[in-house]
């Protein structure tokens, strides 16, 4: 094994790269940034997708909304029994929820009215949930508790304005712990009856209906039946909900475009420049090397190393930085984009799920083409007779 030969050629390659320090550092920086941005998105979206999949696995199989003139409308709870009659349906429960705009902190809360919650002694809740008939008790998300200048705690009161403009006072009996923030950051949970009087919801209506179907395979059939029975309804399947989260941070999303447009353009120009030909200087160098006794294969090996050194360095650094960014620094570069105009937003503590398949694909579509675009143009230069250098 001529291991020294290959190390010698690598030595020369590195020496040669160091000669154009600025250019090569520039390439590595841009390349690293692109890998960093793409893999940040891969890591973040995969992690969100996995979390959504794991958490929402327990949400209702079907949500039935009423659609009026294309918009979501309150649904009558009287159709409950008819839905119960559909084979496979094990339970139909009305959901009472909506939004509440708090002009004090200019934040939107999600407000939910519940009957008997059935949640007791849950370690992610400090205190307790309001019971079914309590008129003025509330459990709130950690971020709501922290949103005001004076932080709310259990025993404090929370004032909400009802649909008639009167203030209703709620006593905080529970606060969701921060470990549940991804689901609960902006929630206000009050009893069903309190919810109805707060928002002025007519009797026998609900925001939507949650339908439980015991057998997984019967879900689509049940949904179709509901749609047939109540043409104005829109059944939302749990699978669709989970699928929605697959699309978060989609490839065509504005965030990616914004982060990339510049870097990508620079990189494409660079790759184009490389792929379409060598500079006169590089050609001459190859000629000199051939003339003093390098073989075509030696030159191609040198070019292979050159591509590998740059692309592998960038790939590894970009990937490591992306991991640190998303999972240890809570995605601080992306967070503002998710935050948008939100006042209440959770502190991301994402579970670092890694999708090796996507990482491998990213490697295959960045490292390999880069190496190829380094080798291919020099291939032509390296197969010419070495004496061209004497006549140049």
């Amino acid at each position, binding site marked *: 094994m001529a291991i020294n030969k290959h*190390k010698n050629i690598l030595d020369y390659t590195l020496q040669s790269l160091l000669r154009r320090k600025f250019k090569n550092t520039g390439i590595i920086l841009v390349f690293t940034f692109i890998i960093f941005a793409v893999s940040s998105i891969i890591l973040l979206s995969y992690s969100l997708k996995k979390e959504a999949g794991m958490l929402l696995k327990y*949400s209702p199989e079907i949500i039935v909304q009423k659609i009026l003139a294309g918009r979501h409308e309150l649904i009558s709870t009287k159709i409950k029994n008819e839905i119960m009659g559909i084979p496979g349906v094990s339970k139909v429960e009305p959901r009472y929820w909506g939004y509440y705009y708090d002009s004090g902190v200019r934040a939107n809360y999600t407000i939910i009215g519940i009957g008997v919650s059935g949640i007791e002694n849950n*370690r992610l809740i400090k205190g307790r949930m309001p019971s079914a008939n309590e008129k003025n008790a509330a459990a709130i998300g950690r971020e709501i508790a922290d949103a005001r200048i004076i932080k709310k705690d259990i025993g404090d009161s929370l004032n909400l304005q009802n649909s008639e403009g009167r203030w209703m006072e709620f006593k905080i009996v529970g606060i969701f712990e921060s470990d549940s923030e991804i689901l609960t950051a902006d929630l206000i949970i009050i009893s069903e009856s309190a919810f109805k009087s707060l928002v002025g919801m007519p009797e026998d209506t609900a925001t939507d209906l949650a339908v439980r179907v015991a057998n997984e395979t019967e879900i689509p059939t049940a949904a179709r039946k509901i749609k047939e029975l109540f043409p104005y309804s*829109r059944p939302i399947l749990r699978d669709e909900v989970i699928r929605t989260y697959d699309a*978060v941070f989609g490839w065509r999303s504005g965030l990616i475009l914004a982060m990339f447009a510049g870097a990508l353009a620079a990189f494409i120009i660079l790759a184009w420049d490389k792929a379409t030909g060598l500079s006169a200087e590089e050609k001459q160098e190859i000629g000199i090397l051939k003339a003093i006794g390098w073989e075509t294969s030696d030159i191609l090996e040198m070019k292979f190393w050159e591509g590998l050194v740059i692309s592998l360095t960038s790939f590894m650094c970009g990937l490591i930085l992306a991991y640190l960014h998303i*999972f240890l620094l809570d995605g601080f570069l992306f967070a503002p984009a998710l935050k*948008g105009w939100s006042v209440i937003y959770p502190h991301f503590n994402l579970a670092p799920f890694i999708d090796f398949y996507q990482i491998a694909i990213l490697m295959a579509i960045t490292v390999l083409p880069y190496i190829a675009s380094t080798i291919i143009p020099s291939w032509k230069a390296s197969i010419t007779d070495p004496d061209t250098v004497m006549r140049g």
Partner: protein
Amino acid sequence: MRKSTAFFIFITANLAVMAALYIHSLTAVSKHPVFKKEIKEIAEKLRLTDLVLSTDARYTRHPSQADLFSAFQDFPGSIEHFPTGSVIPPPDFSYMRTEIRIYGN
């Protein structure tokens, strides 16, 4: 030191960092609250359908529950009003095969 040796050390160091991060991910995932039965109970009992990623627009707070036809909201090419709309794309309702029929004379 030979430059090639330095390069191999650099690559090995990178691999070591990546391995360390992988171990970190395994332990962090196993300890993550997402696996706790308490959070599953919250999701199930409160019948929650969405993650709190952003709270500035209805269709980014509850992407799965958003309206079907409202202007500036659902059509994939619509002009975005809320900044988060560029991150969380509108839901795909193509499976519903909604048709618009225009009848002429």
